[in-house]
């Protein structure tokens, strides 16, 4: 029997346009006018003091952008048809890590990381990340969970925080990571930092192998087109 695709709805990431969502506020529903009387206003006309608290997903995205050094717009674009971030968020939300993850999110909220906009490269400034990192490192459970998150984004694999702690104490200790999913494998940032692509998967243009790769910034930062 042919396997069909599960369309279990996932909560939308705030501000996201996702054609794959069952939730009502989607690009299609906007075009169809179905959302005409159900517009969700986020921020524009709302007094600053009345802004709703950022959700855990939003904070997780900021944390990930800060720790990986990849532009937030690359990790969590407003239109995200691939949506690997949801997989990663669910992995970290495992009850086994609840205490550490909750604490990590609280530290990130308190750090109030801002996403650079305008003509910047969209990468959170290092000094802001360093300030957050110094807080993270005060507790082992949070520190090693943060490392697991970084490795997850870069490698598409999950390294248990406990294993990373053992390796930190003994470099000869072994870890046994698990590939999170085929999608996670193809979306590993390691490959993009290397200006390359995973084995068996490439979004690159035909003939790319005959030309030098684009600069690293094209892969991991926001680079505005010139001369348009």
């Amino acid at each position: 029997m042919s396997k069909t695709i599960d369309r279990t709805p996932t909560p939308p990431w705030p501000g996201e346009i996702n054609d794959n969502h069952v939730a009502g506020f989607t690009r299609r529903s906007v075009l169809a006018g179905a959302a005409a009387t159900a517009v969700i206003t986020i921020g524009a006309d709302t007094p600053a003091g009345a802004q709703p608290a950022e959700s855990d997903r939003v904070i997780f995205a900021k944390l990930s952008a800060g720790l990986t050094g990849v532009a937030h717009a690359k990790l969590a674009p407003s239109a995200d048809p691939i949506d690997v971030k949801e997989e990663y968020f669910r992995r970290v939300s495992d009850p086994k890590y609840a205490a550490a993850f909750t604490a990590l999110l609280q530290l990130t909220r308190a750090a109030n990381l801002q996403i650079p906009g305008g003509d910047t490269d969209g990468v959170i400034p290092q000094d802001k990340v360093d300030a957050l990192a110094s807080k993270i490192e005060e507790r082992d459970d949070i520190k090693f969970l943060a490392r697991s998150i970084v490795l997850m984004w870069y490698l598409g694999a999950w390294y248990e925080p406990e294993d990373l702690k053992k390796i930190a104490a003994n470099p000869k200790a072994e870890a046994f990571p698990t590939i999170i999913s085929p999608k996670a494998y193809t979306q590993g940032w390691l490959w993009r930092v290397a200006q390359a692509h995973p084995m068996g998967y490439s979004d690159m243009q035909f003939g790319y192998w005959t030309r030098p790769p684009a600069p690293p910034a094209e892969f991991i930062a926001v680079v505005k087109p010139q001369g348009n």
Partner: protein
Amino acid sequence: MWEDGEKFIPLLDVMLPGGAKPDWKKRAVPPACRAQHDADPSLMVVQMIEESFNQPFRTGPLIDQNNNYAIFDILMNRAMFDLIVSDKNPLYSRALQASEQNANLRVDFPSGRSKDDPLGPPGHGSIMIKVSWKILAGDDDRSKFHHVEALVAMPTTEGQQMDPPCLRKTLGLIGFHVVHKTQNRPQWIWTSFEHKDNVPEQRDIDAFRSNTDPNKKGPKYNFYTLSCSDSDCPVNETPPRPWDPEPANALQFRRNSQGQMIFNSQIVRTVPLTEATHVINRQFHGVLGDNVWSNYILIGTQWPSEFICATRRSELQGAPSPRTDFDKQPDMNCAPAPTFLANSTLETYSQGEIPQASSSCMGCHGNATSYIRRTPSLNDQQKPAAANDNERRRQMFMNQSDFTFMLEKAR
């Protein structure tokens, strides 16, 4: 519609035998069809080649419940045609594509512009269409299909001594892609539609099977039989080989020695339509009312979702408008959304969500190339070192054909 020949021309009327120059107003009528066509020039002519019955990457034909092959065709609009037949860079034959005249050519089909666009004259830009037809026969209700009277020239088979037969058929539309290049989406916008009765989703099958009414009757699908079990009718399987239609069978799939049918396609839509797509279909059907087009549904639209990426243009000085042919790294498709899109009649056997295997319009078409060659003086061993960025860009050999495989079909 496109059948009237006013706004679209079939690919095979552009890429003519021997690389002959096409004429927008002339249609190639195969010899076997000439007598019937002369008697009734209003008949649409479909010349069949392998791609007319065998899906992309030779993944297999589609056989309906009446044992007929589904037929596929590709058309382009005037904007695309004019670029292909231009005197400056003609592309309608292999020899011309590979000629010195076209060496290092950057293929860049025109983009659609609105009338308010200050950068160029308004116009639709480039549009290409791929269609799938069902031969209407038996108890098919013609009123439910957009249908045309046609002459179908069967494909030539190897070793064949005579012209393949030309068959008079009534063709019912069962699916079509509309692909449009726009100014802000030079990766094109890929939309697909199907007849609403083509195939079920798994939940439709489950609902039917869980209904215990002994008199239950489910809907009649074009490519699925509800009463047939999974063991008797394996789902999404290709027909047994060989696949080529045999002239003696007149576009019917072959039968066994007792004259019994041996295979009908049993197709299920693997990726369900989203709720948002259902909503938009209901809304447009409400607008269409009692019209044959209410029997058709949107499957989805794949569009390049990364805006900054999609707005990039060539930085090569003097690059021809719309300047969309350049070194597109790292993602030349600019994050297609949805990632995968398949029409159950046109990409039947590549439905799914497996990266680089399942159907993605841009994922596949982004790799389209042509017979265009690099300027000999720019071969690696001979080219001088680029003095600046612009010279480096100029020396770059792209060999991409702007998301269309049409140029590869030149003869």
